[in-house]
């Protein structure tokens, strides 16, 4: 997978343990890295990054911004040779998210007690992810 198979554009893959859920050629990709978003255009320098929770926004080759928006919950991204590979344990297309469900999940996590530093850390982490999920789900409508 050294080069983009279809020539122009960035080859973007989103891979989860169960399947490859997206495999498209795009113009640009915005990635939710752990410490903020990062845009990737053509001929970007190769990097490997850790992802936080958030949405991957893909502008398709014909320039449609609404092309693909996918919520990912952590994971990694590898960028190189105009190939962007997102590896995550959970990826849901934004159109399939349910706002009410996301809100309920956030409320449930927020209400959960956390004792000890580790539990608190993991609670804050899942809370952040749930909040991000609500935000992404809310933007769809």
């Amino acid at each position: 997978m050294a080069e983009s198979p279809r020539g122009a554009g960035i080859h973007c893959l989103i891979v989860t343990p169960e399947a490859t859920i997206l495999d498209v050629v795009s113009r640009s990709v915005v990635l939710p890295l752990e410490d903020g978003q990062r845009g990737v255009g053509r001929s970007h320098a190769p990097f490997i990054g850790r992802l936080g929770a958030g949405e991957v926004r893909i502008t398709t080759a014909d320039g449609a911004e609404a092309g693909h928006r996918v919520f990912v919950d952590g994971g990694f991204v590898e960028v190189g040779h105009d190939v962007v590979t997102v590896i995550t344990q959970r990826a849901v297309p934004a159109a399939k998210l349910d706002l009410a469900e996301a809100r309920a999940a956030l409320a449930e996590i927020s209400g959960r007690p956390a004792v000890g530093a580790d539990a608190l850390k993991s609670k804050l982490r899942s809370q952040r992810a749930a909040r991000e999920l609500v935000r992404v789900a809310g933007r769809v409508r």
Partner: protein
Amino acid sequence: MAKARALDRRRKSVRNIRKITRTMELIATARFKKAMDRSVAARDYTTQLAKILGNIAAVGGDVAHPLLEIRPAKRAALLVLTGNRGLCGGYNGNVVRQALAMLGQWKSERVATDVSVSGKRGITALRFRGVEIASRYTAFEDKPEFAAVAPIGRAYLDTYAAGEIDRLDVAYTRFHGIAKQEAVTETLLPLAPPQAAGKTVKLASDDYDFYPSAGSILEELLPASFMARLFKCFLDAAVSEQVARMVAMKAATENAGGLIKNLSRQYNRARQSQITGEIMEILGGVEALKQ
């Protein structure tokens, strides 16, 4: 007449069994195809993870992480993956045998064990042999989902990090191909250290930047790769079970066919000899009337 009728009745019941086994074979074939597709779809994830891991190992130099550390095993965990149902040849038995061998070895090394079993068949078999089972799972059928496997994996990671277990082995049936599956015990924790990506594939321009740092990525990557390997065990077990059932049911259907052929021959012979006997009786009667 009685013998012929009994043979006919047996032949009918064997025919019914053959119908059932043939249907089971067809179902197993369909499920196998689906399970296989899932397994193939999951391969991408593992390949990509391995690629990143290789790149980090190549760039980052020495890789140190608690998950890679080999500690003297005082307490070990064993996860046994079997099926919920039988009628699949030696599938469950082989895995149970593997598990018992591993437990025996640990016992002789005085390692405390913590056994978890997935699948009703494995649970009953191990309970029968007096193995204490810590947790049981019966929810995994032919389509194990990552969302269901993840909590199990996370629990193992947590207990491993807390030092409650020093090693984790999984006894399952590895799928090599449709013609070969074998029951194995594989050590998942501590993880095998990542191999540096081969120099031949690596180009000069492949010097990756890491955000935020190679160490931080590794911290997340190693648990993810453990999860992927655990998930692969579940997928392999599911595919192998369907193959085993397919093969077993095919053999059963063929056997039933042979049995029916034999029974038919016996039945025809019995009927013929009965007819012959009746004709002889009639002839005897006619001869008697003539006199």
